[in-house]
């Protein structure tokens, strides 16, 4: 098991390397000039030249690439052109915020989606199922930016229940809160972005969960379990539900990258200080070191996300479980 994990991890290295190399040359090949931001109409052309020199842009592209690679190998992402500080510092601020938002949304959307899906499947054809179906399609078909704006107008403006932006109250107020007060403040600020990010996908998961559950309940082994006279609860949860869960894991692998990329819009609307905003600003400012760093990080997160899904899959499904113990010594392989 461990060797498989190790192999998978090692396998990500060339992948991430390939992605970042591609992005490096694409970013530099795109028209536009990072020095433009700092110049005015009577700027000396010499200023632009100096800036290019400061940024290392005066060197041939391949040289820039190898310098960048050499620094990266030492764990140095370089300095942001626009913010004039180490890229690592910027990422350290933004990445945890994005991960917080994404992971809360992930839990929300799977817990909520599976719950609603299973419930509709069990109560198939009742009014509850119909309402759940209707709502699922309603949210599933809604573009996330629009959903975000509607949530904003409804809960911040009309009802005035939830704060419209930021991660917590402005620090002059926030600092005065107690420990519990701070926690509560952060939770209410998290509510709208997390909802906006998860609702649409939650609806999708609910549809999958419902279908999966219905299918599982028609399987022979469920009929057998019922025939054995097992209580309905045991039949549903122990037999049908476990099997319906399998496709959910595949979905998890698919949604993790989406949560990281989809967060850009939600982060912008709710002023959430995450990686998406950092990346987008950097792209438009041609802040190459930041563009490169965020690309590598997203690539890593996506690869790790799918790795996680695979691991969960093999944990949940004995049929594809990685051979372990003495068998592993012999084969060491995994049917992937």
């Amino acid at each position, binding site marked *: 098991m461990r060797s498989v994990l190790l192999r998978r991890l090692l396998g990500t290295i060339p992948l991430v390397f390939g992605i970042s190399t591609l992005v490096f040359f694409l970013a530099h090949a795109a028209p*536009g000039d990072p020095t433009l931001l700092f*110049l005015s109409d009577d700027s000396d052309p010499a200023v632009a030249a100096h800036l290019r020199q400061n940024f290392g842009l005066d060197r041939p592209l391949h040289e820039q690439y190898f310098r960048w690679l050499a620094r990266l190998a030492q764990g140095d992402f370089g300095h942001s052109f*626009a913010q*004039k500080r180490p890229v690592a510092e910027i990422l350290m601020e933004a990445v945890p915020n994005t991960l917080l938002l994404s992971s809360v949304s992930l839990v929300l959307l799977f817990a909520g989606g599976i719950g609603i899906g299973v419930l509709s499947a069990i109560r198939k054809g009742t009014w509850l199922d119909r309402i759940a179906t209707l709502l699922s399609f309603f949210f599933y078909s809604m573009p996330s930016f629009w959903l975000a704006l509607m949530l904003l107008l409804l809960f911040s403006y009309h009802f005035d229940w939830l704060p419209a932006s930021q991660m917590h109250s402005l620090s002059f107020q926030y600092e005065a809160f107690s420990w519990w007060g701070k926690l509560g403040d952060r939770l209410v600020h998290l509510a709208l972005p997390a909802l906006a990010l998860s609702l649409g996908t939650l609806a999708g998961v609910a549809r999958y969960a419902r279908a999966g559950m219905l299918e599982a309940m028609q399987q022979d082994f469920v009929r057998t379990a019922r025939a054995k006279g097992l209580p309905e609860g045991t039949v549903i949860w122990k037999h049908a539900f476990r099997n319906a869960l399998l496709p959910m894991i595949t979905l998890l692998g698919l949604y993790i990258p989406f949560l990281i990329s989809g967060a850009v819009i939600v982060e912008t609307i709710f002023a959430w200080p995450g990686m998406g905003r950092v990346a*987008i600003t950097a792209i438009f400012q041609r802040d190459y070191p930041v563009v490169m760093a965020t690309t590598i990080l997203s690539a890593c997160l996506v690869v790790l996300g799918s790795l996680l899904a695979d691991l969960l899959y093999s944990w949940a499904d004995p049929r594809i479980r990685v051979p372990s113990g003495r068998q592993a010594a012999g084969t060491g392989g995994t049917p992937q």
Partner: protein
Amino acid sequence: MFLHFLRRRLPLFSGALLILFAGCGGEKSVSESPRAVRGSSGGTMIVGMDADADALTPLMSSSAFAGDIAGQIFAGLAKTDPDMAGYSPWLAESWEFSNDRKELTFFLRRDAYWHDGVPFTAEDVAFSVPLYKSPEIAYGSMRWLRHITEVTAVDSYTVRFRFDAVYPYQLTDANVATPLPKHILGEVPINEIPTHPFHRNPVGTGPFKFVKWEPQQSIELEANESFFLGRPPLDRVVFKVVPSQTNLVTQLRTGDIDFYPKLRPEAYEDLQDVDHLRKLQIPSRVYYYLGWQNASPFFSDRNVRRALTMAIDRESIVKNLVKGRGAILNTPILPFLWAHDPEVPAIPYDPEGAKKLLSEAGWADHDGDGWLDRNGTPFEFTMKTNENNDLRKDIVVVVQEMLAKLGIRMRPETMEFTVFIDQTTGKDFESMCHGWKQGSKVDLTSIWHTQSINDRYNMVSYSNPRVDELMDRAVTEIDREKATKLWSEVQRLIAADAAYTFLFTLDDLYAIDDRFQNVELTTYSWTYNMHEWSVDPARRKY
């Protein structure tokens, strides 16, 4: 959709190409609230901001908001007057030129302190100017300092600038290099200055002290108790970063944001029914224009360019596209500047006259297909503009329709901002829709001089020897009355040559919670008298 949001993130891009940060003035507009002698102390103002700052020192900040905030933390030697024609004492109590005008001596206040308590002295000034001039730092307006050869601290409170030329903007240029603290940066090697933590944790001499910066969230300033003009009435100013304009406007309505200085016309319209907000409209420093590439065979003829201007109904553009929040412009010098000539003859909206001029130039529908042509070439060209700016894109579409009525086929072409700048400054366009943000100096040479065709910003390849000659004289003319006459003639010639179709100046639109008093917003800057803003004590929120 993406771009729709992103546009808000980059204020620099949407209004104009460039921002000259230092010194500028403008028309004064006094808010309607009664003016207290001195507002009572206390209270917090929350200012909305659509993008985070990049750095908070005048040396390194390049985004518009960052400059505004740095302007509260740092003080300059002199303060630009709102009428923009002159300067008032600030860190310097007074100044005088030597008889040959090659030396400018500032006499500094003795009661100014850095926020960490260290006295501000002439040494700080003498230390700072070389930093702004240093190639390693590549300060954007570095060129403004090119005539300053030496800055010496005569004594602790007297500092002397030496110039190698005599020209009207010596005081402006001496004022560009806002002083930085020598006791903090003095020992730092120059190549480490641009990335020094000081730019994110600044110590200045201005009315407000830096407290805290949470990236992408907020920047907090507090009153400087020992400010040389006395403590500002507001306890605290918090700049809250909210990139989505919809969200910003919502928070203005709910009172979570007290002030937002960059409203779009549609949002401004939308807020009219909110009673607790004062809505203010001030002429801005930005103008929009259409540029015709004079080097292109289509637009090399002055009469053709004039005809194109006559074909465009600018009044309807102002009325419909900016809801009247702007004014038609006829000259390259904006109305708030002293050199503006209000009498420059306007090229009227006259489609019939345009047709006549075009046919005189040989453009007529010879082949009967409904479109103009000349010697077998159809009158067909592209107009470029940048993707992130809805207003410009709308203008191009409206202009396309107006030109089509005359039988001219124009194809809009939009592209990303940096690409647009690359292509336009590289003269790779036939026509374009673009904008300028006016600096404080009246100097048109970088845009209109023949010699500038080889530089970046005479993008339309405009050349008129008479204009060159007049401008050469005007930029060195010390006597403002004589200079005004020269600039007036320049404006008339440029307007008549119609290398640009000047469209309009846009107003800056503001909404501010009406519990704030003494707020004076000017064309020069909305932060002009922030050190005097106060809160009605009966209505203080926090």
